Structure formats: structure tokens, C-alpha cells
């Protein structure tokens, strides 16, 4: 008996096969059709693990594309799923900071992994993966290079919150002859500051779990740690926490007494 959790995000679709522990997981680009991609993610996951479809008794959908998952038995919001996923990985978790492709959120949990409070970014993509991607494009670098490029570099402050305005700001800084490294450092500081401001919206615990694609950036993690004076724990599975939580919810539905 298995459960599957599918997290259809704006950039990547994540899927986890679960039977009390993580059996298999995968991450694929969402592309233009969340509907097709989430379906494909389930099939790929089953192929990869050589498990028959009929042994999977619960599929739970989450993420912004959850509305188009006709095959899911149930859909749950990414907020609840992130809570369950992070709690499964580490039951001491009380605060989760998640920065994804187009939104950022902070979630507060009780001692049982239930959400007790949360806050999300406003409707724009400021301080998210999309912001980082657009800015890297302007600099002509790959997002993955940002960490190395900015090591020990003082930031050139980027003051615009809005992705569109920040883009023109970066272009004019380049025109002024400010170094790529300083601008890049300014960019990751800007993302970190947005993360900090959303953390300030709720009561946070000593140790914070940092998830979502942005958690892969050591630079951003370090800045948030320094400024918040809290340590951030980035699980190895940081990008699949939502999908994992969905799978855990499915598993709990299958084993109501557990």
C-alpha cells in the first residue's frame, strides 16, 4: 500500500511515493500545462520505482496547479502540506520559511505538526525564485552561479521591491559601471530581506526550517541567519517538502489509526 503526493508549483512539479517513509521522489519542470505535467509526474514516479498504479491507494494534490488534478483523491493547500512534510522530516519543527518560484510563506506549527498561523507574500513575485531568475538574466548569469559570485562581496543595495522596477534599477546600475558581483550580492540581499520581513509577521521558534527552491542558495540562507539571529535548517529534500506533506496526508487517510 502506497500514497502519492504531487505538488504542482509555478516552476517545478514535485512528486513523492510514500509508504510510511519516502520510497521515491522526483522533480520535473512544470512547463505550460500543470495538468499534463502533474499526470506525467505520477507516471514517471511509478515507472522509476516499478510499482503498479493499483497499489497506490491515495493521491493527494497540492500547489497552485492542484485545481487541475482531476486524478487526485483530494487536494490540500500547500500551506498545510508544507507543515506536514516538514514535521515528518523533523518533529521538532515549529517554524517553516518557504520561498518558491512565485510565492513565499512562513508557517507556524504546534507540537503535532498542525498549522496554527501562517503568512504569505503579497500578490507580486518580489523576493521569490522568479525575481532571482529575472535578475540573473539581466546580469547574464545562471542562478546557480549567484552563490560563488557573491561570496564576501559587499552588496550594492537594490531598493525596488517590484521585479519590473528592480530590473530597470539593475540595468541602470550596470550602466553606471557597478560591478556584476556587487549587484548580484545586492540581489540576494534583497531576496533575503523579503524573507526576513515575512518571518517578522508571525511568532517564530528558535530553529527554522528553510524550504523551497531558494533554500538551495547558501548565500541567502547565511544572510537570513545573520540578520534574524536564528539558525536555518535546510533539509536535503527541501524542494519536495510540499509533495511529501501531501503524501503523508494521503498515508494518514489510509491508516486512520496511525
Amino acid at each position, binding site marked *: 500500500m502506497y500514497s502519492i503526493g504531487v505538488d504542482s508549483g509555478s516552476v517545478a512539479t514535485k512528486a513523492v511515493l510514500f509508504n510510511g517513509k519516502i520510497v521515491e521522489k522526483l522533480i520535473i519542470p512544470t512547463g505550460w500545462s500543470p495538468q499534463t505535467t502533474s499526470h506525467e509526474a505520477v507516471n514517471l514516479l511509478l515507472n522509476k520505482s516499478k510499482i503498479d498504479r493499483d497499489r497506490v491507494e491515495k493521491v493527494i494534490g497540492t500547489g497552485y496547479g492542484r485545481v487541475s488534478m482531476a486524478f487526485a483523491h483530494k487536494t490540500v493547500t*500547500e*500551506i*498545510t502540506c508544507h507543515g506536514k512534510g516538514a514535521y515528518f522530516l523533523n518533529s521538532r519543527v515549529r517554524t517553516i520559511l518557504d520561498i518558491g518560484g512565485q510565492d513565499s510563506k512562513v508557517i507556524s506549527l504546534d507540537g503535532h505538526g498542525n498549522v496554527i498561523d501562517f503568512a504569505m507574500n503579497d500578490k507580486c513575485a518580489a523576493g521569490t525564485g522568479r525575481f532571482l531568475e529575472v535578475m540573473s538574466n539581466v546580469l547574464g548569469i545562471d542562478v546557480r552561479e549567484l552563490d560563488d559570485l557573491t561570496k564576501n562581496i559587499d552588496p550594492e543595495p537594490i531598493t525596488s521591491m517590484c521585479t519590473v522596477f528592480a530590473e530597470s534599477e539593475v540595468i541602470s546600475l550596470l550602466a553606471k559601471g557597478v560591478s556584476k558581483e556587487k549587484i548580484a550580492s545586492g540581489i540576494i540581499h534583497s531576496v533575503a530581506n523579503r524573507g526576513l520581513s515575512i518571518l517578522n509577521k508571525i511568532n517564530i521558534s528558535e530553529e527554522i526550517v528553510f524550504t523551497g527552491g531558494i533554500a538551495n542558495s547558501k548565500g541567502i540562507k547565511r544572510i537570513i541567519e545573520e540578520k534574524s539571529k536564528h539558525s536555518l535548517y535546510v533539509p536535503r529534500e527541501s524542494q519536495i517538502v510540499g509533495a511529501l506533506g501531501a503524501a503523508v496526508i494521503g498515508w494518514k487517510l489510509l491508516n486512520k489509526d496511525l
Partner: protein
Amino acid sequence: MPDYREMWKSLKMDIEKHDQLCEILPRFYEDIYLSQENRPEAMNYYNFVVSEVHGLRIQELEEHRSKGGKVIGSFCVFVPDEIIDSGGAIGVGLCGGSEFWEPDGERVLPRNTCPLVKASIGAKISSTCPYFQSCDLIVGETTCDGKKKSWEILRDYIPVHVMDLPQMKREKDNISWQDEIKIFMERLETMTGNRVTTEKLSESIKLMNRKRKTLMRLYNTRKSHRLPISGKDALLISQIAFYDNTERFIEKTNELCDELEKRIEDSISVFEDDTPRILVSGTPMAIPNWKLHHIIETSGGAVVCEETCTGTRYFENLVDEGGKTLDEQIKALADRYLNINCACFTPNMGRTEDIVRLYREYNAHGVVYFTLPFCQTYATEFKKVKDVLDREGIPVIMIETGYSLQDTGQIKTRLEAFFEMLDTDKGRAASK
């Protein structure tokens, strides 16, 4: 529907543009309202009122005017209806609740003005709202800076009288508000040629109190464990209360209440039993702004009460009917109206107390704190409200959103997550 085009033309309306508005509204209403299942029979009256919103009611106002009567438009629950009624005039609420009017508002106002002010001003300068066109005088007030400065602009289009609402609730503020009521009364008397007498004012006070009691009766049915009416429908009724004929509104709403009370006896509900019950608190929702209620009630929640100007702030607390002289009556009016806890006051802890009280009275599970964009007073007041709600263990989520529907998806996710959170809360309470 009869043809009202001649009437609209005589009101100097922009018929072509108004046609565009008339095209959107019925479909919008159908999607949001007529799609609901198991609606009370008596809601048909309000369906009719909405279908005739720019027709029959305007015709009534025009008939009143043709006999020399005056129509007074207002934008706020602080403008005393009793004075307007006792002066022989008809009062209508004018706030704009559609994004249709925002671009016209932006012709004269900064973009970062709240949608309610933009739409209200836009409705006038685009000549597409027949209520505005029927008004002989607009009564503004000083509840926020956006409105305060807008009156100066509106004066170029229509006569405006501004009431200076105090922003604190000390004795001297009460005296000052009594003065403002008198000044308004005198202006009205000059305009209509009618004298406001103790007898007339006493009748008007009783009439408006009856309207408040009727709305209270309606809201009381929403305290029931099984909800006989949706939050959307209740909101619509509150909105209609601002411009419908008062006597008819009281009669029809009492008929609805009879039906709702019968439903409670028969355990008939428009929601599943375990639906999270939501108290909405915050900025007013002018017709046809039904957005938040619609999203809540299509995301698994039910609105049980509105702590807003289109909710409890409109009808809670009655005016004392014992005044023997005009001065005593005006003092009674000031006492009642200054008891409204609007975020324009400082400090305003009375509002937080109201929210906690209503949360309990209506057996709510959570609070959705609603604010329109750029509404500084309500957005800022959230901090103090949340501090108290946190201390009381009352879950709350802040939703800031305007009239446009483009952010519906994001709001839905937040609200669904909030309801999931309330659900585990209920589960815990039950397992204790």
C-alpha cells in the same frame, strides 16, 4: 423590464457607457447569487430590487422630486438618516463597489486611492450612476483623507455638504458632533423649505430604529448553529438597506425573517454542518462588491456576520426615543452615532471589543480581517486587533484586496489554508 432610457436621458446620463454597465451586472449577479442552492424563497424580493436597481427605485426618486421633494446622497454610516427623513427628503447610500468606475475615478484621483473612493467619484464624473444623477445634495464626511480631499473635487460636479466627524470620543467631540448635526439640519431645512420639528424627528427616529431592529432580527438568525441564509445573501440585504424605501424594506425583510426563523425550527441550512463559520471584519463592501463573501463561500467557509459598515456598524445600537426637545433628540443622535467604532477614531479599542463579542455571539470559528487597498486606517488597525485576538486564542487572517477579480486564486489558497487550520482546531477541541 420597462424601458427607462427616457428617464436616464433626462438625468443627463451617459447612456452608451451605462449600457456597458447594464451588460455586466446581470451576468455577474447570476454567477454569484442565482447559482446558490436552496436559497430562501423571500430572497426573490431582493433579486427584484437588484434587477430594478437603476430602474424602478430611480423612478420612485424622480416621482418624489417631481413633487418638489429632495434626494440626498451619502457615503457613510455616520450621516444621520433621521435628519434627512424628518426634513422630508429621501436619503440614498452612494458608495461605488464596482471596478467599472475606477478608471474614471483615476482621471481626477491618484492611483493609490482606495477603490471605494475611486469608484464613487468615477460613478459621478462618468454620469453612469442614476442615483448620483438624482441627488440634489451630496453629504460627505471626514472619515479618511481620501474622502476628505475628494469632496473638493466632487464640488465641481454637484453640491456637497461636508460634516466634520470628530476623530476622538471625548465629551467635547460629542458636543461638536451635535453641532455638526444641527448645521446639516439647517442646510436641509433651507434646501427643502421644510422645518424639522420634534414630532417629525421623533417619527424618523422611530422609523430608523425599526429598520435597525429588523436588520438585527435578520442577523440574529445567523447566530443559529444551522445557517438558514448564506453570508452573501445577508450582505446583499445590508447593501440594499442603504437605498431601498425604508418602510418597504422593513416589511420585506421581516417576511424573510419569518421564513428564516421557520427554517431554523425545521433545521434547514444552506451549508453542511461542519462548515467553518467566519466573522468578516473591516472595510465596507459597497454594492456590487460581493467578492470576498463569494470566495469564502466557494472555498468551504460560511460568513456568519460582518463587523463592517455594511454590517453591524450600520444597525447596532438604537437612538434613544425619549427626547422631548430637538436638543435632546440631537444629543441622542450624537450619542448613538458616535458609538460606531470606525477605524477613523483614535484610540479605537471599542472595535476590538466588538470583534471579540461578535465572534462569540455568532459562534464563529475564525475572523477574516478584510481591507481594501490603500485604506490606511483599517490596515493599520489590524496590528492592535490581531494582538488582542491572539491573546484570546481567536484565529485571524488578513486579506487585502480590491474590486478586480484577478487575485482570486491567491486569496482562495490563503482562505482554504485558513479553513484547513480551523478544521484541525475544531478536531482538537472535539478530542479534548
